[in-house]
């Protein structure tokens, strides 16, 4: 009874909470080759992790130009600091942490919130595995969701993006944002609750029109 209730009522977040780490970390061979100065190996690493890195930058910074610039800087710093990378951790998690720190630095330096380019990436979000009709309906829903997400703080956006969009475990998220893994579920809940309120306000606003 208890397990049935938990499965039916509790959000899916707990399903991924205890995900088991893969025994063999990916990208190990490429990282070792890149450390020896093999730039082709590093290029292969960039190709492998460019999308989540750029995605996180775009969700945090909200402008394509800045996201691209910061993502490039992230990879440059990763290359220059490969000797500091701990082989016991996942390479993509390490790079994501660099990207996240650079994004937060830039957000702190910003004197005003730039909204001109914010809409740029709305239509660029992929919708894998959907028919055209489903895609059209889903596109509207996604746009509402993206719009509501943009109203949240960077801290809320990052935790939602890392968990739901990038499907990362709570342990990985804790490594990226530098906090205790046990706090992630509470943070996720709070961020989701803020998002739910935003979505409710958005829907009420549409109904009133």
């Amino acid at each position: 009874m208890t397990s049935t209730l938990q499965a039916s009522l509790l959000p899916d977040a707990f399903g991924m909470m205890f995900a088991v780490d893969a025994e063999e970390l990916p990208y190990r061979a490429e990282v070792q080759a890149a450390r020896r100065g093999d730039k082709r190996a590093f290029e292969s690493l960039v190709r492998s992790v460019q999308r989540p890195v750029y995605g996180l930058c775009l969700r945090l910074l909200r402008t394509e130009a800045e996201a691209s610039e910061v993502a490039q800087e992230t990879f440059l710093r990763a290359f220059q600091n490969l000797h500091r990378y701990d082989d016991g951790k996942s390479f993509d998690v390490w790079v994501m942490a660099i990207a996240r720190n650079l994004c937060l630095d830039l957000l702190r330096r910003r004197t005003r919130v730039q909204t001109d380019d914010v809409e740029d990436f709305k239509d660029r979000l992929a919708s894998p595995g959907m028919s055209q009709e489903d895609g059209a309906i889903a596109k509207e829903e996604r746009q509402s969701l993206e719009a509501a997400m943009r109203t949240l703080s960077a801290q809320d956006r990052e935790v939602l993006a890392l968990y739901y969009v990038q499907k990362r475990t709570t342990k990985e998220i804790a490594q990226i944002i530098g906090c205790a893994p046990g706090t992630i579920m509470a943070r996720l809940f709070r961020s989701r609750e803020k998002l739910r309120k935003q979505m409710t306000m958005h829907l009420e606003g549409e109904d009133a029109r």
Partner: protein
Amino acid sequence: MSCPDLETLYLRAADGDEEAISHLESCEACTALMEAHQELERDLRHLSDPFPPSHFVGQVMARIEAAPVPVRVELQTGFLILLAALALGVGALVAAPHATAELATNTATSFLNWREAFFAFANAAGALWSIAAIPLIAVVSALFLASLVGLRRFAGAALTEVKVS
């Protein structure tokens, strides 16, 4: 029935707390909120990361090519060159045992006659000073300045090395 704080309820129910679970079973308002969260989670999972611009990887690699060589790599290269030179020298000595013996004899002789060697060196330095004092000062000054510039560059690069978490 008074509802507990939603976050507390959610976290306690997730931990298997019977009281929280029974509240969720009986309270329509809390159940509705939990269902709203579930729906939101489903929608969030449908979002995906956008693709970076097509020229992104090329731009990254161009920046890496253009970036100055890190100090660590320079030091590593210098150390390797030093090791190679040392290995070559030792190899040459081992390959020519007569030369090694001769070098050892000469070193021992020089060591025994150190006083003579010292005076000879002092005389040579004095002669050089009297013949070419200005060029000597210029060469020593140039070497000193080059060392200073090198040290400054080394220290500057070390200080600007990026901070990575």
